[in-house]
C-alpha cells in the first residue's frame, strides 16, 4: 500500500472558533429533504383538493350572494339549498385536516433524533466538531420553522374554503371545534407543538416507530383535551336566560332548562309540552305534532310555564382573542419541549 501523507496539522488555535451555523444548512437539508418533500406533498395534495372543491363552492355561493334581498323568501331558500348541498361535505374534510399537525410531528420530527439513536449514527454525529447541542438546535429550528410556515400558509386557504358557508348562514361559527384550530394562527401553532412533541418523543423513546405512535397519541390527546376542556375557559363564557338569545355563529357550550331554581329534566319538559302536542327529542330539539297550534313557539311556551333556559356560550367575536391565547400557550409549550429535547441531547446520558 502506498503511503499518502497527511498534511501537517496547524498548531493549536488559541481561539477555537466554533463551526459556523450555516454549515448545518446543507446537512439538515440533505438528511431531511425527503421529510420536507413529504410535508410539501401532504399540504400540496390537501391544498389542491381544497382549491378544486373550494372553487365549486365559491361558484355556487356567488349565485346565493347575488340574490336580493338576502335572507328573505327565495333568497333564504337558495341559501338553505346551498348549505344542504355543500355543508355536509365540508365537515369530514375539516375533520380529516385535523390530523395534519400530528402527522408532521410523527413523520418529520420523530426521525430527527430517534433514527440517529436507533441506527447508532449519533455516535458519528455527536462526536464531530460541530457539537451535539448546536447540532440539535441547527436541525430542529429550521425544520420547525419550515413546517410551521407551511401550516400557516395552508390555514389561509382553509379560511377561504369555509368562507361561503358562513356567508350563507351556516350555524357552526369560527369557534366550532373542528374549524377553530385550522384557521388563524392555530394551525401553525398546533403544527409547531406537534413537531416539538415529536422531537421530544424521538429522544425519549429512541425508536422511530414507537416514538411515532407516542407522538400521534400525545398530539391527539392534547388536541382533544384542549377542545373539550380548555378552550371554553380562555374567557368567562357569556350566559343568557333570554330564550331568543342570538347564538348564531357562537360556540354554544351548554343550554340548560331549569324550573323554580332546580334543573328541569327531559321528562318534566315533555310533560309540559304534551299539552300542545310537541315532542321534546332533546331539551333543545322540539318536534311539533299535528295538533300543535301554529302560533305557539315551544321555547316561549316553556318560558311562560315557569321554565328558564340558561345558555352558556362564547360569542364569535372572541375568535381572534382565542386564537392568540391558544397560539400563545402552544408556542410557549413548543419552546419548552424543544428546549427539553436539546437539553436531553446535551446531557450526554447515552
Amino acid at each position, binding site marked *: 500500500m502506498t503511503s*499518502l501523507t*497527511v498534511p501537517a496539522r496547524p498548531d493549536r488555535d488559541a481561539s477555537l472558533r466554533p*463551526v459556523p451555523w450555516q454549515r448545518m444548512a446543507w446537512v439538515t437539508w440533505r438528511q431531511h429533504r425527503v421529510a420536507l418533500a413529504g410535508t410539501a406533498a401532504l399540504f400540496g395534495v390537501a391544498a389542491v383538493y381544497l382549491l378544486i372543491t373550494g372553487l365549486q363552492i365559491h361558484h355556487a355561493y356567488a349565485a346565493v350572494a347575488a340574490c336580493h334581498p338576502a335572507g328573505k323568501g327565495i333568497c333564504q331558500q337558495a341559501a338553505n339549498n346551498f348549505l344542504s348541498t355543500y355543508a355536509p361535505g365540508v365537515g369530514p374534510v375539516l375533520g380529516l385536516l385535523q390530523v395534519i399537525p400530528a402527522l408532521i410531528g410523527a413523520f418529520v420530527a420523530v426521525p430527527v433524533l430517534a433514527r440517529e439513536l436507533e441506527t447508532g449514527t449519533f*455516535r458519528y454525529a455527536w462526536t464531530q*466538531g*460541530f457539537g451535539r447541542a448546536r447540532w440539535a438546535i441547527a436541525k430542529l429550528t429550521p425544520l420547525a420553522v419550515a413546517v410551521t410556515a407551511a401550516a400557516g400558509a395552508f390555514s389561509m386557504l382553509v379560511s377561504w374554503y369555509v368562507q361561503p358557508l358562513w356567508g350563507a348562514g351556516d350555524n357552526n361559527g369560527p369557534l366550532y371545534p373542528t374549524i377553530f384550530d385550522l384557521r388563524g394562527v392555530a394551525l401553525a401553532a398546533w403544527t409547531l407543538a406537534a413537531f416539538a412533541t415529536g422531537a421530544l418523543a424521538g429522544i425519549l423513546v429512541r425508536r422511530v416507530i414507537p416514538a411515532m405512535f407516542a407522538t400521534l397519541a400525545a398530539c391527539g390527546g392534547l388536541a382533544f383535551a384542549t377542545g373539550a376542556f380548555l378552550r371554553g375557559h380562555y374567557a368567562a363564557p357569556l350566559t343568557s336566560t333570554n330564550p331568543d338569545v342570538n347564538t348564531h355563529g357562537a360556540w354554544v357550550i351548554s343550554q340548560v332548562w331549569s324550573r323554580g331554581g332546580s334543573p328541569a329534566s327531559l321528562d318534566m319538559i315533555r310533560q309540559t309540552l304534551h299539552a300542545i302536542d310537541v315532542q321534546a327529542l332533546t331539551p333543545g330539539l322540539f318536534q311539533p305534532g299535528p295538533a300543535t297550534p301554529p302560533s305557539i313557539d315551544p321555547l316561549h311556551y316553556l318560558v311562560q310555564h315557569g321554565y328558564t333556559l340558561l345558555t352558556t356560550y362564547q360569542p364569535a367575536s372572541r375568535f381572534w382573542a382565542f386564537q392568540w391565547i391558544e397560539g400563545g400557550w402552544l408556542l410557549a409549550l413548543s419552546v419548552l419541549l424543544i428546549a427539553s429535547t436539546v437539553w436531553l441531547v446535551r446531557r450526554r446520558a*447515552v
Partner: protein
Amino acid sequence: MNILEASRLGKCYGRTWALRECTLAVPAGHVAALVGPNGAGKTTLLNLAVGLTAPTAGKVTVLGGEPAGSPAALDGIGFVAQNTPLYKNLSVTDMVHLTRNLNRRFDQRYARARLSELGIPLARKAGELSGGQQAQLALTLALARRPRLLVLDEPMAMLDPLARHDFMATVMTAMADEGVSVVLSSHVLAELERVADYLILMSRGKVQVAGEVEALLACHLLLSGPAAEADRYAEGLNVVHARRGRAQAHLLVRTNGTTDPVPLGWEAHRVSLEELTLAYLREPGAAALPGPESARYAAATEETK
C-alpha cells in the same frame, strides 16, 4: 502531554458499574491497545473519552487536559465507533461532504485521494459498501479531520483478515506521517500485538494493567520448575498467575526489573505480550497495577485539588 487521562473515573448504568475507579494516563504518541473480554468496560471508557457519555464519578480529560466532550476535545478527536455507524442512505460523496460541514478542519483532498486509492466508489451508498469499505470510509472521514487523537472502538470486529490488515495499515500510516496518537479497543489481542506499544488491560469494569508494552514485558518473567517446589518458591514472589501441571509448574511473576537468580531446577523466560495478557485476564483479582506512571498522575491530581 497525556493524550488521555482519567482520574477515579466511573460510569454507572442503573445499578451496574460499567466502569469503576479508573485511573489512567496515556502519554501522547502511542498506539494504545485497550484489551479485555466482552463487557469489561472498554466501550464505556472510550465513550467517556470522546464525550458521548458523561461520567458518574471522577473525570476524564483528553489532548493534554481538555475536558472530554468540550469543543476543543471534539475538534481534536477522530472517533470511529463500534460497527462504524454511517448514514446508510447517503452516498460516499455525501458522507464526505457531511463530515466536512460538521467540522472546522477537513482535508477534502486527503479524503478523495484516500478513497480513490482504496477503490471505494464515491457514488455508492454507504450502506451498500462492504464491511471493510465501510470501516475504511469511517476511518478516512475521521483522519481527514486531521485529529490529534484517533479513537477506534472494536474497529476490526467485523473485518476479514485482509481488510484488517489494510485498515491497520491506514492507521499506522497516519500515525507515522502525522504523529496521531491512537487508542483502539479489541477483545482479540492478536490483531493488536504487532501495532500496539501501550497496553491497557481491562476486566469487570476495572483497569488491571496500564503501561508501555516494552516496560511491561521487561518486568514480567515466566518461571518454570518442579511443581512440588512451586508453592514454597512462590511465597517470596509477586505471582500474577500460576499454572500447575503434574510435574511442572509455570509461574508468571512481576519483578521490579532486576533479575534475581533462579533456584536450581527452575528456568526463567521472557514473556510474550499474549502470555502476559492472558495471565492477567485469568486473574481478574491480580490488579498488579496502576503502574508508576498513573500512580504518579493520581498523586499529582490529588495535590492540585
